[in-house]
């Protein structure tokens, strides 16, 4: 039995030997290119069975070539030779070197192809094909860095360019796909869409947050939350516009509807401002204070708690009875009895929050009511305007009457004083008649209010041209200016369910619903079943005056 350590020697790209060891054994060791050979030399210059290593009778090992096979041993053509360390055996293109045998082996042979076929011949005989993807010319590194370069260019460098040049910024904003599109985290909110892709409008300086100045450049009219500037600055010194107004989250975005920001202050106002007078509140459904009504009396504007009903008086200088006009049997008019409803006079404006201003012509003269007729001794229709306009119209009627039939109608006038101008006398007469009859047909007769006096408060003016002065109107547009309320969103219920006006006889009555009435439908931020969830911004705005 021969135990042989076979060392396959190959060369790496640097030309250094790479040795791969294996052990073969047998009674003899065949060398050749056929499959059964233990030392398989794959080259057509080697015979199928080229030589055999055998053990001699004295125990030494020797190599013996096959018939017609050539062995080149230490530079000499031999048929057989003893194998001792250092012996070189060339078989075809292979060089076999006998090395010192390690323990456990009888012999150690290193085999190396030293005379490979020329490249052309190898290609011709072996038809070498790529055996790895790398052989196909694909490079993971090139592919990776190429991809990374594309990403850096498209998604980093191109979006940065508009911040370098404003001209480039304007130009790229007109493109169907802008350079900065890839950086936009989402669509802009409604009004901001006009800005489009001009990011620098808000993002004015790279690597710096959007400043409040950028916002106030357009939103100049936005009021501070607190009227006192010093107090506002001290409380909101760390709050930026973007703390609440987050853009790029779609059309519905931009306004933070979460109440936590409000409650952080209004939950304990004293902590933020020891001089605060408003009550603390956390939630509309639980501890929101009762409503206050803002009342004006021509000089002062005061907030009156709704519980103090004695102070809830409107001084509008108008006379009006809701009870008369909302009588279910109808109100008497030249066209007969007319049943009126609230919407006949109170028409919601286009914003849906308030009511359109009422005018005499469009509101009060429905069914030919309140036409401002004066009837004696001439019939006419006074215009709804200033006192002077009404008097001028009346004077015009009397002047015409006097000039049409002077002999008959001038009789009621005082005689002319001296030989004055007849025309002047006629005008003085018309003025006197107008004053006399206007008083009794337009304003008041025997304590009864007529035409103008039906609705307006008035008093003598002492002016010869307009003897009556109508008190200026003070109609309250917002009873709760600190809150917003959309009547258009509440048109599913009758007006009188919230405003108890059916039995109101005077215009001084204020019929605003209480907080309990609102809570019949509305709840706080955690709404109960069947109720509408209402957060702070359902009714209030952070910026006073905002809608």
């Amino acid at each position, binding site marked *: 039995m021969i135990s042989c350590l076979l060392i396959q020697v190959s060369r790496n790209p640097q030309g250094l030997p790479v040795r791969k060891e294996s052990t073969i054994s047998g009674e003899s060791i065949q060398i050749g290119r*056929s*499959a059964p050979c233990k030392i398989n030399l794959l080259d057509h210059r080697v015979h199928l069975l080229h030589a055999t290593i055998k053990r001699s009778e004295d125990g030494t090992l020797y190599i013996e070539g096959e018939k017609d096979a050539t062995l080149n041993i230490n530079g000499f053509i031999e048929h057989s030779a003893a194998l001792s360390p250092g012996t070189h055996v060339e078989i075809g293109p292979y060089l076999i070197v006998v090395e010192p045998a390690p323990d456990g082996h009888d012999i150690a042979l290193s085999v190396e192809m030293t005379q490979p076929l020329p490249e052309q011949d190898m290609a*011709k*005989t072996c*038809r070498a*094909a*790529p*055996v*790895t*993807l*790398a*052989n*196909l010319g*694909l490079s*993971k*590194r090139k*592919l*990776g*860095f*190429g*991809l*990374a*370069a*594309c*990403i*850096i260019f498209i*998604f*980093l460098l191109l*979006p*940065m360019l508009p*911040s370098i040049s404003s001209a480039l910024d304007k130009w790229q904003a007109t493109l169907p796909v802008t350079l900065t599109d890839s*950086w936009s985290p989402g669509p802009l909110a409604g009004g901001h869409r006009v800005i489009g892709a001009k*990011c620098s409008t808000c*993002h004015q300086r*790279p*690597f*710096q*947050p*959007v400043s409040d100045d950028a916002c106030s450049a357009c939103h100049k009219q936005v009021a501070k939350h607190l009227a006192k500037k010093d107090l506002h600055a001290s409380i909101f010194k760390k709050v930026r516009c973007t703390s609440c107004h987050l853009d790029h989250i779609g059309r519905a975005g931009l306004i933070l509807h979460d109440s936590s920001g409000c409650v952080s202050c209004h939950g304990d106002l004293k902590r933020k401002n020891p001089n605060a007078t408003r009550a603390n509140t956390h939630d509309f459904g639980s501890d929101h204070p009762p409503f206050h009504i803002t009342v004006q009396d021509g000089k002062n504007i005061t907030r009156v708690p709704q519980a103090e009903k004695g102070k809830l008086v409107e001084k509008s200088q108008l006379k009006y009875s809701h009870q008369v006009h909302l009588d279910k049997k109808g109100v008497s008019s030249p066209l007969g009895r007319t049943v009126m409803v609230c919407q006949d006079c109170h028409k919601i404006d286009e914003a849906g929050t308030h009511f359109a201003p009422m005018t005499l012509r469009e509101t009060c003269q429905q069914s030919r009511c309140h036409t401002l007729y004066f009837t004696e001794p001439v019939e006419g229709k006074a215009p709804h305007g200033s006192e002077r306009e009404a008097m001028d119209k009346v004077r015009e009627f009397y002047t015409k009457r006097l000039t049409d039939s002077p002999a008959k109608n001038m009789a009621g006038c005082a005689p002319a004083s001296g030989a004055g101008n007849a025309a002047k006398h006629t005008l003085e007469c018309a003025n006197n008649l107008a004053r006399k009859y206007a008083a009794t047909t337009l304003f008041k007769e025997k304590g009864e209010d007529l035409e103008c006096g039906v609705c307006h408060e008035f008093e003598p003016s002492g002016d010869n041209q307009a003897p009556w002065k109508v008190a200026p109107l003070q109609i309250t547009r917002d009873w709760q200016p600190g809150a917003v309320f959309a009547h258009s969103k509440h048109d599913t219920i009758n007006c009188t369910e919230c405003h108890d006006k059916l039995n109101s006889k005077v215009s001084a009555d204020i019929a605003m619903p209480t907080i309990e009435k609102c809570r019949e439908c509305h709840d706080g931020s955690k709404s109960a079943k069947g109720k509408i969830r209402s957060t702070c911004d359902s009714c209030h705005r952070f910026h006073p005056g905002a809608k």
Partner: protein
Amino acid sequence: MVLRARHETRIGGNIFQQLSGHQHHCPTTFATRQIQNLGKKYINGDHPKLMRDLYSVLLHKEKLVLKARYSIMLKARLDGWLYLHVPLSIALLAALIAHIVAVFFYW
């Protein structure tokens, strides 16, 4: 036939051949099958032994070729994953850098 098997048998090849581990109409396989049939005709003299040896060699070669192709196929598929994974990982790193810069650029 044997010469064709020697010259035209391919291990590896283009990307599809590497990934499939298969050569369409492999000449070695074809030769191995044909040698079986030829052995039935050459029954005189040394022919049976030579045919048997030839068949043995071709069978051994076919076995080695299939084994090599299978190894290449496995390596090609693993490499294929790397060709997907490595470039995308590098690209992901680039995208991450771009994202971080973008976040702080337009804050």
